[in-house]
């Protein structure tokens, strides 16, 4: 008995000698948890929780009528996923989303890089003005932009067709055409988003020392060769970052078809996000979450592939 007490007393003494730094660490950890706690609570309740909840729901037959009793639903295994993947409309939405991303992301990045090079190498006067102006569309509401663009693209008296009329081109009814509706949405997305990638490219370009280009000049490389073989490889991480963030954003496009086309004509601009939202509107919560998860997995895989392709070389 006494021996045990002695050992305990020793242990206590060893644990907290006065002024030892170890006590400070625990105080530090305590402070850390106080600082972290509000975030963690909100994060668990409104982000992490719903991510898991969504996963669970995607394996149930939960519908709108179960809204008040979300725990009394039946598991249906992979039925929702099977249903989504065999649904013609969902496949069409997946195709449209791929179209939007595969054409839209590279186009946005090319325009953004072009604008960044223009500002970095060409435009010295009023550079700040051009930069801010090109960035303006990024900060505006997609809904408002979509409303405006509907008027810009309107067939008879829209801005675009009027301008095309000056050079003798008879523009189509952009948003009502099965061929032109999607390219119109892509054009609008490029117009709205290139500014944010441009800012990042600009920061990347400005981080490249002048000596790199000078070295190329001495070696007799022309402007295009210097850009292609010296500048572009140095921008790889910046390109990766832009590719990943644009890709994640474009894969989720929703407001554009919601406001401009309602997914039409004949579902040619229906996106996965919009179809998911429609299923939610019909009350098919389980099906909607399975579609959202398919999108999530695609986003994760695409992001991973981009990292593999662009990071190591």
């Amino acid at each position, binding site marked *: 008995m006494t021996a045990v007490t002695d050992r305990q007393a020793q242990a206590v003494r060893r644990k907290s000698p006065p002024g030892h730094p170890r006590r400070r660490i625990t*105080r*530090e950890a305590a*402070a*850390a*948890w106080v*600082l*972290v706690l*509000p*975030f963690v609570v*909100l994060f668990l*309740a*409104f*982000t*992490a*929780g719903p*991510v898991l909840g*969504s996963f669970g*729901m995607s394996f149930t037959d939960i519908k709108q009528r179960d*809204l*008040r009793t*979300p725990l009394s639903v039946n598991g249906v295994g992979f039925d929702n996923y099977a249903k989504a993947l065999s649904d013609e409309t969902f496949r069409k939405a997946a195709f449209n989303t791929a179209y939007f991303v595969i054409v839209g992301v590279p186009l946005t990045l090319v325009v953004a890089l072009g*604008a960044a090079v223009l500002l970095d190498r*060409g*435009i010295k006067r009023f550079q700040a003005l*051009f930069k*801010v*102006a*090109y*960035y303006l*569309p990024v900060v505006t*509401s*997609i*809904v*408002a*932009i979509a*409303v*405006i663009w509907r*008027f*810009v693209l309107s067939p008879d*008296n*829209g801005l675009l067709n009027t301008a095309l009329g000056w050079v003798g081109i008879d523009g189509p009814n952009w948003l009502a055409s099965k061929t032109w509706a999607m390219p119109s949405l892509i054009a609008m997305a490029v117009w709205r988003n290139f500014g944010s990638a441009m*800012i*990042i490219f*600009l*920061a990347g370009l400005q981080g490249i020392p002048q000596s790199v280009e000078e070295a190329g000049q001495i070696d007799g490389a022309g402007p295009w060769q210097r850009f292609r073989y010296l500048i572009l490889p140095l921008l790889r991480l*910046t390109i990766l970052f*832009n590719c990943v963030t644009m890709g*994640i954003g474009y*894969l989720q496009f929703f*407001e554009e078809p*919601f*406001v401009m086309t309602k997914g039409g004509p004949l579902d040619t601009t229906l996106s*996965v*996000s919009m179809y998911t939202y429609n299923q*939610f509107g019909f009350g098919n*919560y389980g099906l*909607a979450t399975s*579609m*959202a998860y398919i999108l999530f997995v695609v986003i994760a895989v695409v*992001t991973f592939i981009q990292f593999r392709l662009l990071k190591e070389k």
Partner: protein
Amino acid sequence: MRRTWWIYLIGVLGLVAVAAPFLWMVLGSFKTQGELLRVPPTWWPDQPTSQNYDELFSKANFPRYFLNSTLVALAVTAGNLVFCSMIGYALAKLRFKGRNALFVLVMATLMVPGMVTFVPLFVLVTNAGLANSYPGLILPFLVSPFGVFLMRQFFLGLPDDLIDAGRVDGTGELGIFARIMLPLTRPALATLGILTFLGSWNNFLWPLVIAQTEDKYTLPVALALYSTGQNAQNYGLLMAGAVVVVVPVLVMFLAFQRHVTRGIAITGLK
């Protein structure tokens, strides 16, 4: 000399392409319905009228939507400034168990689409009795992974010496955060505040789902529903509505643009 001439020409053409839709919107909002339908269209309003704005503010209840958007954006911004700077400091400067795991977990949610969380979130918020309420609009956005990332990056750049000096002086850990470190992050807070405000102002999916009666609509929700509903053909009203949604953020952005572009560049490069 000749080379710079055509470079500036391209630059100015770009400016025109960016600005034209905005000008079209502003000018269109002062035209009558008859003039908006005219072929070919007019550029300057023939007889400038404020009737679209009168309708927007008297019949269409836009002051209410404006108030809702402002209220929600301010609350969301305040929450992000407080909570993200707190956790950002802890993740950057304090040693505690699970720090790296927490950071990785938060960053992983950066690529979770809003579509994934909104259905369970809707079920949760509805059962908590918060559907169609301000807390329902605000609570899910009080913290953001982006805000955590931004604040952590900024705190990482501040020297540890300041913290050690505070400890030597006998300042408590929370005091060091609040009185010594936080005041130094003013530039990052400005960036986070503006980006959060803009993001909340433009947010669409969640308010569309959770605001069920007109008195809780935010501006984008109201504009989207007007433009696809019975007012779809009321072009002047929609143009004026778009102006009310867009112009406040444009003005705000122009006033604070340095903070916005710097913040984007910070997150992009590190």
